[in-house]
């Protein structure tokens, strides 16, 4: 159909965005965050009971890619590749996953408090992972490791469906009912999980660490098992970043702007849940990452998900690696559960958000 354009169009040769549209706040933030994450990662890999200096860490890592004369002890390599690297990688993915899925949930539900834990999804994922753990005790290795994120994904998806149904009032999902339903279902899932864990008493140490959010069980199998869940889920969220922006308006306006609202919501919820599952599969309870990082990122680059999602992934990875560094150095040689560290940072921030929520805008 011929669509006449009532606006007279001016000639336009400029290929770049005009000044007013480069409003895009904080252009340099994402490159800087990338750099920061790399630095934190190298420090994280180096610091521990055996200290490996950052430069040496870089050299050892590079030696896997290019030819460098080996002038370091073989034990360093073992520590680096078999112990530290999988752990740091798993933590980075967990942080990135919690923060980016939190961002997506917050945008989707237009609710600044929608963190994977507060809306119950993480607890549901946890329960799924525990059930998978209970079922797969006999299958170690990568296959067994894959069962955990798979179980977490199924558990999380079931939870999100239940919470969504419970929180819905007519056509809307009010902020309070979402959180109330999420917390209630979250408790239920946690209780069920604990009940199942009682039956797994032969794995008591592993279970305890799992519950409190610890990574001493990190292995390459675990890290590799969660990667596809995170990568696929994150890619889908990122592809839908602009529709997610438009959804921030409200559903009617989004529809009038040509967005298939129900489809976008369904796809993004599944993707975000997949990402959450990748975080929770091996980690246990690590709260607040999905709350602190997205809000800090919004302050830096504004509400556009096309910048927000990558930045929160980077920020989440960096934040959790730092928290982990703290967790394993502060009372060395013992380790603090990671969830305790993030809670110390997160709880005050959450209260601050709650108080601010009354008179300020998040989106």
């Amino acid at each position, binding site marked *: 159909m011929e669509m006449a354009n009532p606006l007279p169009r001016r000639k336009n040769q400029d290929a770049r965005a005009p000044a007013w549209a480069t409003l895009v706040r904080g252009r340099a933030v994402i490159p800087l965050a990338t750099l920061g994450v790399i630095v934190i990662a190298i420090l994280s890999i180096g610091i521990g009971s055996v200290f490996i200096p950052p430069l040496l860490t870089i050299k050892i890592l590079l030696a896997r890619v290019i030819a460098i004369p080996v002038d370091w002890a073989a034990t360093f390599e073992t520590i680096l590749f078999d112990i530290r690297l999988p752990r740091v990688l798993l933590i980075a993915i967990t942080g990135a996953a919690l923060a980016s899925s939190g961002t997506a949930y917050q945008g989707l539900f237009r609710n600044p408090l929608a963190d994977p834990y507060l809306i119950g999804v993480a607890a549901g994922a946890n329960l799924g992972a525990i059930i998978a753990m209970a079922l797969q005790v006999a299958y170690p290795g990568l296959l067994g490791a894959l069962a955990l994120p798979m179980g977490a994904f199924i558990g999380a998806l079931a939870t999100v469906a239940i919470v969504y149904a419970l929180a819905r009032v007519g056509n809307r999902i009010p902020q309070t009912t979402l959180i109330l339903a999420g917390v209630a279902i979250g408790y239920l899932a946690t209780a069920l999980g604990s009940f199942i864990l009682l039956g797994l008493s032969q794995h008591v140490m592993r279970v305890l660490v799992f519950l409190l959010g610890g990574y001493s069980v990190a292995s390459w199998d675990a890290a590799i098992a969660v990667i596809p869940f995170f990568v696929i889920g994150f890619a889908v969220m990122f592809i839908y970043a602009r529709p997610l922006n438009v959804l921030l308006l409200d559903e009617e*306006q989004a529809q009038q702007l040509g967005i298939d609202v129900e489809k976008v919501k369904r796809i993004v919820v599944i993707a975000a849940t997949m990402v959450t599952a990748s975080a929770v599969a091996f980690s246990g309870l690590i709260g607040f990452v999905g709350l602190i990082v997205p809000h800090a990122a919004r302050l830096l680059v504004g*509400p556009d998900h096309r910048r927000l999602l990558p930045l929160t992934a980077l920020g989440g990875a960096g934040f959790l690696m730092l928290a982990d560094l703290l967790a394993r150095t502060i009372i060395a040689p013992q380790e603090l559960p990671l969830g305790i560290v993030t809670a110390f940072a997160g709880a005050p921030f959450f209260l601050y958000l709650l108080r601010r929520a009354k008179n300020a805008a998040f989106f």
Partner: protein
Amino acid sequence: MLKLEHISASYGKRAVLKNIALTARDGEILGLIGPNGAGKSSLMRVISGTLAPTTGAVRLAETDLARMDRRARARAIAVVPQHSNLPDAFTAGEAVLMGRTPHLAFFGVERARDFQIAQDAMLRTDTFQFAERFVGELSGGERQRVLIARALAQEPRVLLLDEATAHLDLKHQTAIWDLVRQLARAGLIVVAALHDLNLAAQYADRLALLRGGELLICDQPARVLTREWLRRGYDVSALISAHPLYQTPMIALIEEGELE
């Protein structure tokens, strides 16, 4: 030409539109008037596609809108809502760029042309000067103009204005309506729900008077804004005079029984 063919619609069991037949021609401003609950907004929602009619069809240049996909429909029809949620953390410029959504490819990145169109829309609505300010910092009227700019950035064939200028001061109200008329003269179809009958008289080419979901009359303002139709539409007594300059009808309400 936008053609409403025997539209009926309901929310649940409550019928809100009953067999409405209306046509808006290219280049015309069609005003929808009537008391609260008359069905003006519902009719707008049927045209914009957010409320599905139970019977009848909306045709734009012979194409049934129900057969158009969502994006094509959003390229054809833009809505300026009465109340709307505009997230405070977006800048006015970003909010206007949202209007380019139906024109962008799947993983939408705005191109120079999109920025140019958004900028034009802002210049026309006197909003460009605060393109970089946050929506949360704008006054109600400024926000409303941003919404109008967003609708223009959609490059629509049909513009739906649902009480779009009700919150604007006189200067900007006049400026927006002058702009709307200018756009209409260039071929845009405008359908506007209006409470302000004097405004309706001055700017609309034709007025459709609705009540209880039914269309009472659709004709030139001088034939609709009469004592008789105002009584039947609104249950009010009114005196009609003529605008001193344009000779369009001017309505003055009078107390019930004053002239009886």
